[in-house]
């Protein structure tokens, strides 16, 4: 199911190439990512989907032998410009990882971790944010009575929703998700997908997924990555029913995985 696409571009990718140890992982990508919509990224393993996602919040900077060329414009400003502060960037562009990664603290502390970094100390404000974030992640009812117990005691699906809430608490503009439901049970997966469908009304969401059916369910736009190139991008139903490229068609019909 797709909604009409808002043509305001949140991200403009211009001639982006990324190299790991001098070997290209991404080759010359140029396209736009719209705001208030879900962009699904599909493709086989090793295609560069995660690498691409990590360029959007400059997490690749943390890898020693990785460098990027080209431009990534967020609201028309290049995030790779030397004057652009990556720390501030990551407060605007949040990320949920493939494995549920709660910090070894209480549920409450997990959610407010980023807020505390920004200097927010007001207890009332923190409580409010915790409640609204956990509600948006469909986790509030399950944990509201044990906010100060360890986050490590939650189940995998709950932990991942906690990670989503943690990201939402920062009030970002963009949410990046890297195969967030791999390894989760169908109910948790459904809850996260439901959350995303509501969240896209306020955020730009980029979702990398190995599960093409998930992209079909949830994404407004879908792009197909293969071996470092973006082969095709378009409205989800087009990609899945009338793809322009043969390779896209082969992938979505399951000829290779």
């Amino acid at each position: 199911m797709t909604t009409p696409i808002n043509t305001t571009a949140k991200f403009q990718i211009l001639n982006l190439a990324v190299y790991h140890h001098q070997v290209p992982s991404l080759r010359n990508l140029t396209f736009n990512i719209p705001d208030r919509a879900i962009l699904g990224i599909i493709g086989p393993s090793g295609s560069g989907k995660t690498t691409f996602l990590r360029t959007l919040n400059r997490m690749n900077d943390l890898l020693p032998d990785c460098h990027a060329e080209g431009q990534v414009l967020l609201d028309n400003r290049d995030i790779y410009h030397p004057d652009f502060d990556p720390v501030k960037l990551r407060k605007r562009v949040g990320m949920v990882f493939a494995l549920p990664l709660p910090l070894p603290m209480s549920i409450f502390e997990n959610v407010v971790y980023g807020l505390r970094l920004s200097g927010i100390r007001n207890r009332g404000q923190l409580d409010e944010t915790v409640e609204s974030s956990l509600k948006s992640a469909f986790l509030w009812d399950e944990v509201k009575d044990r906010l100060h117990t360890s986050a490590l005691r939650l189940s995998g699906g709950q932990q991942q929703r906690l990670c989503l809430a943690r990201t939402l608490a920062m009030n970002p503009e963009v949410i990046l998700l890297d195969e967030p439901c791999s390894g989760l049970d169908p109910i948790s997966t459904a809850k996260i997908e439901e959350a995303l469908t509501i969240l896209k009304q306020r955020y730009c969401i980029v979702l990398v997924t190995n599960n093409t059916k998930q992209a079909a369910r949830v994404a407004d736009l879908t792009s197909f990555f293969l071996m470092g190139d973006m082969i095709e991008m378009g409205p989800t139903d087009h990609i899945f029913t009338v793809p322009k490229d043969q390779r896209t068609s082969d992938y979505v019909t399951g000829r290779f995985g």
Partner: protein
Amino acid sequence: MRIPPKITQAIAVTLLGACTALTLAVLVYIIVSVLDQGLPVVNWDFLFTKPRDMGRAGGILPTLVGTVLLPLLALLIALPLGVGTAIYLTEYTRESKATRFIRFGADCLAGVPSIIFGLFGFIFFVVMLGMGWSLLAGGLTLAIMILPTLIRTSEEAIRAVPNAYREVSFSLGATRWETVLKVVLPNALPGIVTGIMLSIGRCIGETAAVIFTAGSSLHMPLSAMDSVRTMSVHFYILAREGISQENAYGTAAVLIISVLTVNLTAYWMMNRFIAQRNK
């Protein structure tokens, strides 16, 4: 005549077991005999009064104070340096010639015998910098001595923190230092504390480095420039000068109990740390 292998094995294992038993017996004997002769001497008076007649009578209070203050001062100096070095090596650089050089320096420092520390501390802190025999000179010298241990244990503890935690912290907009302070260090704390305990144990038992830098005054130290006598120094003097065999045993008993307690605590903490990590 060829001895059947099973018999060779039996002989060998018996011999090996005997060696192990002998080792254990000797070490246990040392502790037991000191405690046996020394504990009767140790009472409230012994611990908390000042020595009289150069230690022939009275207690060991000033030496207790010295034994507490000296490692404390050494830690105050060495702990930030050691943890700071460990943080730098793990969080702020990659392996390079510089890091190998730093580690080489720490390893070499670890192999320097205490008498050389005593010599150095004497000529540099006591004489050249004019501190005289003092708590300060002793503390600085001991600080250099425990630095390698602190670096090594802190580095190990920091490396053991899973990388995932760092990634999460960064993705939420933390700087590297904020990540170290709020995520890495709190999780590495048990390992670091183990290193602290081991260092304290080493300071308590140290004599050669202390006697040439902190001196051997029996007065209660009132400032950092005062000379102090630690328990191990006191024990050494009592024993060598033949002042009081009784009090020597008593001091030795307190000394051994302190060292064993500290090391046992360190060992127990390390085990808990490892168990928690593997959960």
